């Protein structure tokens, strides 16, 4: 295995949870809801995936538990902000704090246990392609899901009728409501999709990235995912590019250090953030397209008139 291939494999592992969590948030925000609880939903997914895997011996059950856990946890956010019209920013922050606390409690029994790593699935024929094969087609299920979800979400948001409704709600919930679209119902679904994706991202952390449970193991990745959504101007493929760029620069800076190039490590550590921001800002520098892509009702409460 060549060094480039080794680096790329590490990049894929590092980028996948960011892409997944950000993708879920992208859909949530497209529907006009700002959920700052990504970190909390992610860590809940991580602990539940690990616990379910330990209980059943199957990491696939773990994946399901992660998805379900994230979705259910986001439902709490949905209920508070959509039904009770609580402030979204405060509730999202509370969700993160709550998730970190609860996951620590649930996970206490699992600390120090060695986990089960999600097995790799080689796709027949494709996995025999030189270089690309072992890189892209000999991966674990969650990686395949992440790519499929990006493609699916992009199609869904911009090519399907349901996607159009979501975007309409995000842009102007009053008008959408007037047209007879069920704003609250669709927002619930969007929030739950966000939770499910964050939960899946968490499952990737405790089943693939570092197959173990450590309290706080998401270590701020939920916040990076949130930032990615904005810098990708709410476009799924840009988000994929941003996630992988962030991962690539993060891993390359580690290699640059190990090679002893003599570049200050603090600078290198900041590089992934700086590079991703610069590139995504350049991609979406056109003010008009940015305005078109920004959900105009983002974060605003909606109370249907009766």
């Amino acid at each position, binding site marked *: 295995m060549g*060094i480039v291939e*080794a*680096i790329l494999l*590490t990049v894929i*592992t*590092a980028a996948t949870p960011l892409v997944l969590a950000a993708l879920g948030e992208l859909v949530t925000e497209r529907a006009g809801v700002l959920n700052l609880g990504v970190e909390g939903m992610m860590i809940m997914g991580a602990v539940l995936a690990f616990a379910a895997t330990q209980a059943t011996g199957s990491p696939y059950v773990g994946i399901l538990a992660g998805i379900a856990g994230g979705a259910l946890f986001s439902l*709490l956010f949905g209920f*508070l902000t959509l039904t*009770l019209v*609580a*402030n979204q920013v*405060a*509730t999202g922050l*509370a*969700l993160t*704090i*709550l998730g*970190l*606390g*609860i996951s*620590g*409690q649930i*996970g*206490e029994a699992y*600390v*120090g246990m*060695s986990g089960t*790593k999600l097995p790799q699935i080689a796709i027949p024929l494709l996995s025999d392609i030189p270089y690309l094969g072992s890189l892209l087609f000999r991966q674990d299920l969650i990686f395949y899901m992440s790519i499929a979800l990006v493609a699916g979400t992009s199609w869904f948001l911009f090519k399907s009728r349901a996607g159009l409704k979501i975007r309409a709600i995000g842009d102007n919930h009053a008008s959408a409501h007037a047209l007879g679209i069920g704003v609250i119902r669709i927002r619930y679904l969007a929030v739950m999709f966000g939770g499910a994706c964050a939960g899946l991202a968490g499952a990737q*952390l405790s089943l693939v*990235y*570092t*197959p*173990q449970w*450590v*309290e*706080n*193991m998401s*270590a*701020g*990745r939920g916040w990076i995912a949130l930032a990615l959504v904005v810098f990708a101007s709410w476009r799924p493929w840009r988000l994929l590019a941003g996630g992988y760029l962030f991962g690539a620069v*993060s*891993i390359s800076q*580690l*290699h640059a*250090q*190990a*090679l*002893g190039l*003599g570049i*200050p*490590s*603090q600078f290198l*550590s900041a590089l992934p953030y700086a590079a991703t921001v610069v590139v995504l800002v350049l991609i979406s520098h056109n003010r008009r397209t940015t305005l078109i892509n920004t959900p105009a009702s983002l974060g605003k409460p909606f109370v249907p008139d009766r």
Partner: protein
Amino acid sequence: MKKLLLALATSAAMLGFAASAGAQDKTKICFIYVGSKTDGGWTQAHDIGRQALQDHFGDKIETPFLESVPEGPDAERAIERMARSGCALVFTTSFGFMDPTIKVAEKFPDVKFEHATGFKSAPNVATYNSRFYEGRYIQGQIAAKMSEKGVAGYIASFPIPEVVMGINAFVHGAQSVNPDFKVKVIWANTWFDPGKEADAAKALIDQGVDILTQHTDTTAPMQVAAERGIKAFGQASDMIKAGPETQLTAIVDTWGAYYIKRTQQLLDGTWKSEQVWDGLKDGILTMAPYTNMPDDVKKLAEDTEAKIRSGELHPFTGPIKKQDGSDWLADGEKPEDKVLLGMNFYIAGVDDKLPQ
């Protein structure tokens, strides 16, 4: 409902803050942790020490703690809260709590503070530290014996004296066995991030190191080493569970005895501000069993450990030059503790550029 949730969330955030509604006659010995008490490394070692303290004094004391307190401005608030809540003695267990501890101590002259691994003290602030470098020197010797490629990987956290000293000791130990031994260093710029630590481990292994050592807090690097089939050293706690066939040994911090000694002095009224720096001989650190190595390497490690314990060997004994080629220690000379505690330079033989 929202208020209820917020209340829930706040209480979740304070789960670590053990119930403090006990009887007033109990003396409160408090702890501030940088990570989670179950991190499997640094903080867990402190928490084991805290439990030993609680068991030793039983009903006479209580030992509330705050975990996952970030270094920086938040730390000051956390420490102040502890001081305000009636703690008689507060242990702040991370280097980055140094300035916040000093600041809070000024406001609470009647509360005693002990700061781990720092170099600033006050009449009511003592410092305590462990001579980790003694263990690192032994690890260096083992690494040089065990490595086939003659290159080890070192996952470092922040360029502070304690960490720099560790790298120097490791390299010096290794080169006492194999003068050509090399170490590749990655600065993770974090104490606690399993994913990033694992990425650093992978990067080092991909670049050809066949021994891994870490100065970060989780077992993720050990796990990667196990997966890739190379050997590694544990840090702060015995990490053998994360790599039963991987761990060579670990520096295990055993703070309990120190916590008991200082609490006893507090209860007796004889506590005073000191700068304690204990080593292998005092039992503040121990080496985890020497495993996964041939008998001759084990023998070398045990001999070195015995010599350090008896005082026959100081890991930093001259002649040693600095990385820039200037003289540091003359033949047979040993460094002053003050110099070690402020170590901000590499010694000759370290193949890395120290971040400033």
